[in-house]
C-alpha cells in the first residue's frame, strides 16, 4: 500500500531497470568525471589515433583521439557532465515556468488563460529547431542561451499539460469543498492541485530531460551549441563529421553516448508510467 513500495516495484521490472541503470551510470560518470577521465579533455596529444592505440609514451587511448589529438574517452566522460548539468538546469527552468503559468491559466481561466494560451500557441507555432536557431542567432551560442532556448521550447508544452490537469482537477469536488470552506487560492493550488498532478509530471520530466539532451546534441551537431572547446557530445559529432569516413570512432562513440542516455530516460519514464498513473487517482 505504501507509495515508496509501488515505485520500487515498478523499477524492479526489466525495462525500467535497464533505464535506471543507464541513467544512473551516466549520472555517476557525470559526477565523477574528474576522477574517471584518464586524460585532460582539453589537452592535445597525438591526433587521430584509432581506438585502443598506444601513444608514444606507451599510454593507451581506449577510444582513440580526435583531430586535435585530444582523448575521445576523456571528452566523452566530461561531455556527460556538460549534458547532465545543462539539460537538467534547462529542464528545471522550463518546469518552473510551465508549472506556474499552467496552474494560473487552468485555475483562473478567463483572460489570464486566453493570454497565456495564446502566447504558448505562438511559441508552439515554431518548429522547435527553427525556434532554437533564431534564438541562438540572435543571442549567440553559450550555455546560458542554450538553457534559454530549451526553456522557450519546452515551457509551452509543460504549460499545456499542467493547464489541462489543473482544469480537470478544478472540476473535482474536493476542490469545490476546499473553496466552500474558505481555503486560500494559494493553498488550493499548491496543496490540493499540484501534488495531484505530480504523477504525469514525473513521467514527463524524464522524457523532457531526454528531449533537452537531444536538443543540446542537435545544436552541438549544427555547431550552434556550446562553443568549443567545451566537451559536448553533439559538438564532437560536428567536429568529427568530415573525417568520419576514415575515422568513424570520432562520431560513433558520442552518438552511442547520447542515444544510451536518452534511451535510459525513456525506459525509466515508461516504467514509471504505471505507478505514476495510480498517484493522484482515487479509489
Amino acid at each position, binding site marked *: 500500500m505504501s507509495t515508496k513500495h509501488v515505485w520500487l516495484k515498478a523499477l524492479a521490472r526489466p525495462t525500467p531497470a535497464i533505464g535506471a541503470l543507464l541513467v544512473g551510470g551516466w549520472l555517476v560518470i557525470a559526477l565523477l568525471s574528474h576522477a574517471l577521465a584518464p586524460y585532460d579533455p582539453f589537452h592535445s596529444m597525438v591526433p587521430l589515433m584509432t581506438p585502443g592505440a598506444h601513444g608514444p609514451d606507451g599510454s593507451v587511448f581506449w577510444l582513440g583521439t580526435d583531430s586535435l589529438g585530444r582523448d575521445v574517452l576523456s571528452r566523452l566522460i566530461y561531455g556527460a557532465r556538460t549534458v547532465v548539468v545543462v539539460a537538467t538546469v534547462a529542464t528545471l527552468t522550463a518546469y518552473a515556468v510551465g508549472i506556474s503559468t499552467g496552474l494560473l491559466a487552468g485555475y483562473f481561466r478567463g483572460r489570464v488563460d486566453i493570454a497565456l494560451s495564446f502566447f504558448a500557441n505562438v511559441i508552439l507555432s515554431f518548429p*522547435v529547431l*527553427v525556434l532554437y536557431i533564431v534564438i541562438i542567432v540572435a543571442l549567440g551560442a553559450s550555455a546560458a542561451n542554450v538553457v534559454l532556448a530549451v526553456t522557450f521550447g519546452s515551457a509551452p508544452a509543460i504549460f499545456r499539460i499542467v493547464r489541462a490537469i489543473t482544469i480537470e482537477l478544478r472540476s473535482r469536488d474536493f476542490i469545490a469543498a476546499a473553496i466552500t470552506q474558505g481555503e486560500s487560492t494559494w493553498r488550493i493550488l499548491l496543496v490540493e492541485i499540484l501534488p495531484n498532478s505530480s504523477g504525469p509530471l514525473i513521467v514527463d520530466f524524464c522524457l523532457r530531460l531526454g528531449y533537452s539532451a537531444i536538443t543540446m546534441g542537435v545544436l552541438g551537431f*549544427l555547431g550552434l551549441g556550446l562553443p568549443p572547446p567545451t566537451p559536448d557530445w553533439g559538438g564532437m559529432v560536428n567536429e568529427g563529421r568530415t573525417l*568520419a569516413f576514415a575515422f568513424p570512432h570520432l562520431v560513433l562513440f558520442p552518438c552511442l553516448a547520447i542515444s544510451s542516455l*536518452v534511451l535510459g*530516460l525513456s525506459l525509466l519514464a*515508461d516504467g514509471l508510467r504505471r505507478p505514476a498513473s495510480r498517484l493522484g487517482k482515487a479509489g
Partner: protein
Amino acid sequence: MSAASDLSGGVSRWLLRKLFGMLLTMLAVSFLVFAVLELNVDDVAVKVLGQFSTADQRHAWLVQNGYTAPFLWRYLRWIGEFVTGHWGTSTYYREDVLTLIAPRLAASGLLAGAALLVIVPLGLVMGVIAGMREGSFVDRLVSVFAVVTTSIPEFASAVFLTSLFVFWLGWLPGVSTMADGFHLRELVLPVSVLTLYSAGYVARMTRSSMVEVMQSPYIRTARLKGNSMRRIIVRHALRNALITPVTVIMLQIPWLMSGVIVVEVFFAYQGFGTLLYQAALNTDIYLIEACTMISVVVVVLTQVASDLLYTWLNPRMSIRTARTAAGAK
C-alpha cells in the same frame, strides 16, 4: 431545418474564428521574429556588412536603408513588404530571397512527402496490431521498438545508418546532394532516418488510441452481437481508433520539419533546411526571417488542417452532425 442551419452557421463561425486565430498567431510570430532579430539596429548592420566594416560604413548603411525610423514603423513596413512578396536580398548569396527559397522548398517537400509515405502506413499498422491485444507479445515488441527509436536523435541514427550502409557495407551513397540529377538511391538514407524517429511515435499514439477503443462499451456490444474479432476490429474499432492518430500525424509535421533540417544538413541535401542552416551560420538575417516565417506558416496551416480533419472524422463534432441532421429532415 432551423436546428440544422443553426449548426452549420456554427460551423462557419467556428471556421472564421479558427482563421482569425491563425492570422493573429502569425502576426504575433512575425512581431516576435522581427523584434528578436532587428530590435538592435547596430547588430543588424554588423550582420549585413560583416564584422570588419567600419562604424561609418554601418552608419551610412543604416541611414540609407531607413533604419533610423522608430521600431514599430520599421516593423509595419517590413510586414507590409513581406506580405507583398518583397523578402529582401540574401547578404550571403547576393540573390533575391524569394527566388532562392522556392526550389529549396520544393526539394524539402519531396523529402518530407517521401518520409510521410513511409511513416504513416508503417506507424498506423504497427500501432493497430499492437493495440488490438494489449499486453501481447507483438504489443510489447512494438512498444520497445517505439521507445528505442524515439530515443535516438536524428543525427545519431544518421551516423549509425551511414556507418552500417555506407562505410561498412558500401550499399548506399553517404551524401544526397543530387548533384547530377535526381536519384532515388540518395533519398533512401534520409527517409530512413526520418522514418526511424517518427514512425515509432505514430505507432505509440495509434496503439494507445486503439487500446482505449478496444476497452470501450460499444466494442463489448459489438462482440455480444456476435461479431468475430476480425470484424470487430475492421468494422467497429479502426474507424474510432484512427481519429486521434490521424490528427496527431498532422501535428507531427512541425517535428518532421526539425528532423528534416538535421537530416538535410547531415546528408548535404540541398533543401530548405540546409538553406536555413547556412543562413544561420552566416547570420544572413533576411534569409533567416523569411525561412522562419515560412516554417511557421506551414506549422499553423497543418494545425488548422488537423483541426478540420478531426472535426470531419469525429461524428460527435458539428460539421458532420449538421449534414446528417439536415439530410434526415
